[in-house]
């Protein structure tokens, strides 16, 4: 049907394309490669040949030392951070879904105001509120405690979550609400038993985005939990262990490798969902 009049890209153009992509790809991979190979080398080899794989000096000692380090209990940090991820996700969904439903079904200026209240949080840098948050938590007696941290982290997830949930719920037909009402369910019950199950796709999106956010958060656990609490997440633990300009690479590389590993596994398994969630989150705006 269509005449192929497209000027075929010459070999030169193709060559340049691969050159550009190749250089950028290598730049992306070199830090990972360096981190992985040097996690199994003694200091002398790391300094002398950072990019070479040296089988003769291969050792698991340093990785083992990092796993069993008294400075940073990485296994405990995995567990605690994962607990935070799970609990924040649960609270976030329990709080956001009903209010998003009210916003999506509401027709008054109050409902619009409610949406604007939460969406304003999208533009507020979290670190700006963090300082006064410390005083609010102190008044509540929750500073340096896990509940206090979870409360703040949950609040931080609300704007994006409510924004996405209410956008999604607007596309859900009202017939379902009406059918539930005819069956005699009150609005609260109708929501949880009829509407919420339909929200699976958007809930999955939010769980992925929030999980990455909570897992990688550093400033809030550092300030709200604080070193005095003795509770370390993966990020605050790495910060305490690696410290600034640590030049003992036999500690630095294995510790960083351990910190990155779960995130990379999660990325490889969930890549499609992460990308889908990102695009959904950004294009709903």
């Amino acid at each position, binding site marked *: 049907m269509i005449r192929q009049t497209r000027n075929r890209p010459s070999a030169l153009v193709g060559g340049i394309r691969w050159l550009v992509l190749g250089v950028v790809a290598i730049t992306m991979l070199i830090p990972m490669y360096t981190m992985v190979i040097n996690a199994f080398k003694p200091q002398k080899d790391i300094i002398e040949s950072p990019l070479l794989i040296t089988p003769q000096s291969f050792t698991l000692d340093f990785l083992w030392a990092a796993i069993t380090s008294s400075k940073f209990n990485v296994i405990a940090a995995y567990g605690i951070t994962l607990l935070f991820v799970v609990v924040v996700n649960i609270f976030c969904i329990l709080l956001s879904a009903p209010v998003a439903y009210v916003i999506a079904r509401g027709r008054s200026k109050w409902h619009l105001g409610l949406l604007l209240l939460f969406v304003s949080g999208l*533009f507020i840098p979290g670190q700006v509120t963090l300082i006064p948050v410390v*005083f609010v938590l102190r008044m509540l007696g929750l500073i340096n405690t896990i509940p206090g941290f979870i409360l703040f982290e949950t609040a931080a997830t609300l704007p994006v979550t409510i924004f996405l949930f209410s956008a999604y719920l607007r596309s859900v037909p009202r017939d379902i609400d009406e059918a539930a009402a005819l069956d005699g369910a009150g609005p609260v019950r109708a929501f949880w038993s009829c509407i919420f199950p339909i929200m699976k796709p958007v809930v999955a999106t939010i769980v992925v985005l929030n999980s990455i956010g909570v897992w990688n958060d550093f400033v809030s656990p550092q300030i709200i939990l604080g070193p005095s609490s003795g509770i370390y997440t993966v990020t605050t633990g790495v910060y305490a262990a690696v410290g600034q300009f640590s030049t003992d690479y036999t500690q630095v590389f294995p510790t960083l490798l351990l910190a990155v590993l779960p995130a990379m596994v999660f990325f490889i398994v969930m890549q499609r969902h992460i990308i889908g969630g990102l695009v959904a989150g950004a294009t709903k705006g």
Partner: protein
Amino acid sequence: MSSTIAPQRRSGAAQRWRRRVPGLIMATPAVAVFLAMFVIPMILAGVLSFTDWTGYSLNFDFVGWDNYARAFRNPRSISAAVFTGVIALVGTLFCNLVGLAIAALISGPGRSNTILRTIFFYPYVISSLIIGFIWSAMLAPTGAVNGMLASFGLPAMPFLTDPTFAKASVIFTIVWSHFGFNMILFLAGIKSVPAEYYEAATVDGASRWQQFRSITVPLIAPVFTVNIVLTLVGLLKAYDVVLSLTDGGPAGSTQTIVYQILKDSFANSALGFGAAQSIVLLIVTAVIGLGVTLVRRRAEQKAVD
């Protein structure tokens, strides 16, 4: 919770109230948490910014606009604000240029493009703090990059020890870790352009580059807006990566606004001053976010016409 079925004669107001109860039940918890952890702290920051409170003493005075005046006069604050501005502008420019270029190069179907997409995007799931530590190990005086230079017989570079180099290293690290996110959004935009447009253009004999210029770019205008706003607003908050890569050094040359705020509020016990800088950052962020959105809206309209 559940509505009673028996019809009761009540005044209209009470009726209306009863209808509102479920909505209130559903909205209250989220609103309460948000007020406690976001709105009240915001107001508190506003009030604190007019005081000289250190953060722990019991007495403090209202000092009017002193903290704000200080924020605009203090050389540390000014240099942090300038560097943060440079990060935001230069970083946003490069993240989007590289992101768009790479997205255009790998937008086709095929396995190699999928693998490349993964390679460019993976830093998104790693925390900025850890990315800073990784690059700090790469760029240190005895780090991997200088080791590589040495093996080619080249002199070592002061990537983290010279102020200008350190600033460039911070921006490079941010772009390295962030452009994949912009690329993903550009890719989604490019893939949503209907194929017929390209077919028609091909029939008219338009080159690849012409097609990209006059079909792809105008049609994905909204993606530019989202990308620019999100990157600008995100980079104004730069902190974690600076902390782990340079710790604000050498000689404070890579301190950012958030770095200052946290340092003044906690280490320096100047809570009022920290709060004032927070409010300035908040206003700048909101103005830039809304401003760029409005300007781009206009441009999008033009692009469509």
